[in-house]
C-alpha cells in the first residue's frame, strides 16, 4: 500500500509534552489556518438517545448551549451525523422497540424530516433459506468528499450499506454481507454485544475514496483498497480474551476505531482487549494501552482523536473485570489523554464527581470538535452530557436527565 504520508509530527515527544503545548499551539494554529479551519464556527452537538434525539447549539465560545429537542421522542436513535461536506444534510438512524428500523434525513437542522424510502435491508433470502433482518442501523459515515451525497451505514447484525442519494435509498454494499467467510467471522447474534452484534467504525481514507476500513463486534477490523471489491482482515497484534484463538476473527472485538484526520496513516483503536495504535503501511497493531496505569487498565468503549495532531487521543476507561461492569473504575470517572501517541497517558478528571459515579459511556458517545483548543464531549448511559473546552483539562456537565445516551457527535454549522 504505497501512500504518501502526511504525518508532520514526530512521535518522539517527551513526557513534558503538556508544558510545551503553548509552542505547539501556535504551530498547530498556523497549520490549521493554512487549511482555513483554525477556529470553529458555531458548534453543534448531536445527541442520540434510547428515547429520542437532541441538538445542542453552541455559541462560538462553546460555553453556552441552546437545546433543541426532543426529536423523535420515544424512538431509539443509535446515531446522528451531520454531513461535513455540505454542513446541512443530517441523517438519523432510528428504530423503536416495536417497529422496524429506518433512516430520517433533514436538511434544515431538524425543522423538517424526510424518511428513507428504502432503509438498509439485507437481500431477500432464496426460497428455503433463512435470511437476515436488520435490527437497527448502528453507524453512519459520510463518504469521501469527492462523492457528494454518498453515505455508508453499518447495521446490527453486521451489514454494510451504501446510499448514493443522501440517505434516501440504501443498498447492500460490496460482498461482505453475504460472503460465507465474513458471515462466519460475524458469528451468531449470541456472539455479539448485548443489544446485538454490530458493524461500526466505517472509515474512509480522506486521500482515497476506495480505501476504507470497518470494524465488527464481533468480527475484527477490515480494510479494502479497491472500493469494496476485496476486503482483508487487519487484526495482527490485536489480543482476544485469554484462552481463545486470535486467529479466529469471531473472537476479535474492536470497540471503536478512529483515523487521525491530520495523518490518515495512523489509526487508534479501543478494543475489548486494550488500546492500540496502527501506523500504516504496517499491519501490526501496537498495544499502547499497556502504558495506562495498572490499576486503571485499558478497557473501554469510545476513543477520540485530535483533529490536527496525530499524537493526541483520548479514551474513557471502564471496568472490565470479572463480569464486566462497564462502569467508571471504582466509581471515579476519568478521561485519559495521550499527547505522545500512547507512550504515556494523563488522567483528566477535573470537574467530575470524585466518588460514587458509576458511569457507562458507549462507543459512539464521545467526540471531539475542531476547536483550538479542541472541545471534547461525551454522554453517559445515565443521561448526562459532559464537555471540556480545553482538551480534557477540565470538565463541566451541560445537560442532565436525558435518556440513556447512545451517541454524541460534533458538527460545525455556518452562522
Amino acid at each position, binding site marked *: 500500500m504505497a501512500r504518501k504520508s502526511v504525518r508532520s509530527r514526530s512521535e518522539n515527544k517527551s513526557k513534558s509534552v503538556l508544558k510545551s503545548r503553548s509552542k505547539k499551539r501556535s504551530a498547530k494554529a498556523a497549520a490549521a489556518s493554512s487549511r482555513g479551519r483554525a477556529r470553529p464556527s458555531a458548534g453543534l452537538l448531536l445527541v442520540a438517545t434510547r428515547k429520542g434525539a437532541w441538538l445542542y447549539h453552541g455559541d462560538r465560545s462553546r460555553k453556552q448551549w441552546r437545546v433543541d429537542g426532543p426529536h423523535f421522542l420515544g424512538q431509539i436513535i443509535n446515531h446522528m451525523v451531520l454531513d461535513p461536506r455540505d454542513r446541512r444534510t443530517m441523517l438519523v438512524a432510528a428504530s423503536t*422497540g416495536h417497529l422496524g428500523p429506518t433512516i430520517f434525513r433533514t436538511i434544515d437542522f431538524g425543522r423538517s424530516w424526510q424518511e428513507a424510502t428504502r432503509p438498509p435491508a439485507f437481500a431477500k433470502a432464496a426460497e428455503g433459506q433463512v435470511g437476515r433482518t436488520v435490527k437497527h442501523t448502528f453507524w453512519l459515515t459520510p463518504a469521501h468528499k469527492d462523492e457528494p451525497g454518498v453515505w455508508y451505514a453499518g447495521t446490527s447484525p453486521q451489514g454494510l450499506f451504501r446510499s448514493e442519494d443522501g440517505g434516501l435509498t440504501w443498498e447492500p454494499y460490496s460482498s461482505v454481507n453475504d460472503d460465507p467467510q465474513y458471515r462466519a467471522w460475524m458469528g451468531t447474534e449470541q456472539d455479539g454485544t448485548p443489544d446485538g452484534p454490530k458493524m461500526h467504525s466505517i472509515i474512509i481514507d480522506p486521500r482515497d475514496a476506495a480505501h476504507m476500513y470497518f470494524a465488527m463486534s464481533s468480527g475484527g477490523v477490515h480494510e479494502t483498497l479497491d472500493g469494496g471489491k476485496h476486503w482483508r482482515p487487519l487484526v495482527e497484534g490485536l489480543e482476544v480474551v485469554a484462552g481463545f484463538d486470535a486467529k479466529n476473527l469471531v473472537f476479535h472485538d474492536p470497540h471503536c476505531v478512529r483515523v487521525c484526520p491530520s495523518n490518515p496513516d495512523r489509526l487508534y483503536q479501543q478494543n475489548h482487549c486494550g488500546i492500540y495504535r496502527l501506523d500504516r503501511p504496517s499491519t501490526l497493531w501496537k498495544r499502547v494501552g499497556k502504558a495506562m496505569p495498572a490499576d486503571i487498565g485499558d478497557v473501554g468503549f469510545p476513543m477520540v482523536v485530535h483533529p490536527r495532531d496525530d499524537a493526541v487521543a483520548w479514551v474513557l476507561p471502564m471496568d472490565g473485570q470479572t463480569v464486566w461492569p462497564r462502569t467508571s473504575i471504582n466509581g471515579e470517572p476519568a478521561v485519559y489523554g495521550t499527547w505522545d501517541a500512547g507512550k504515556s497517558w494523563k488522567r483528566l478528571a477535573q470537574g467530575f464527581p470524585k466518588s460514587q459515579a458509576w458511569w457507562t459511556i458507549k462507543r459512539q458517545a464521545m467526540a471531539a470538535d475542531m476547536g483550538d483548543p479542541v472541545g471534547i464531549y461525551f454522554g453517559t448511559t445515565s443521561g448526562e452530557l459532559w464537555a471540556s473546552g480545553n482538551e480534557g483539562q477540565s470538565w463541566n456537565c451541560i445537560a442532565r436527565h436525558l435518556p440513556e445516551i447512545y451517541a454524541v457527535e460534533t458538527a460545525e454549522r455556518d452562522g
Partner: protein
Amino acid sequence: MTAAAPIEVSIASPLVSYTGTDKVQALGETLGDVLNDLDARFPGIRFRMIDEQDRIRKHIRIFINDEQVRDLAQSVRPADQVWIVQALSGG
C-alpha cells in the same frame, strides 16, 4: 388484480405518524396486497411492520377480523377488517 371495494385497516398508534389517522382504507386481495397499497400511499410504513424477509416483525400483530394472521398471502375480502396492533413490551 385487486378487490374493487376498499378494506378498512386499523393502524397502531406508533404508525399513525405515517397515516395521520388510526383508520384508513386500502385495496387488495391478500394481506400482502393491502400492506403494499398502504406503503404506496404512506411510504415507509410497510418496512416498519414487515422485515426484508417478508416476516411480520416481532412486536407487530396483524388480525383479519378476530383471527391473528402470520402469512402475507392470507386472503382478505372487502367486508373484512384488518387490525394492525403493536405488542408493547419493555421500558
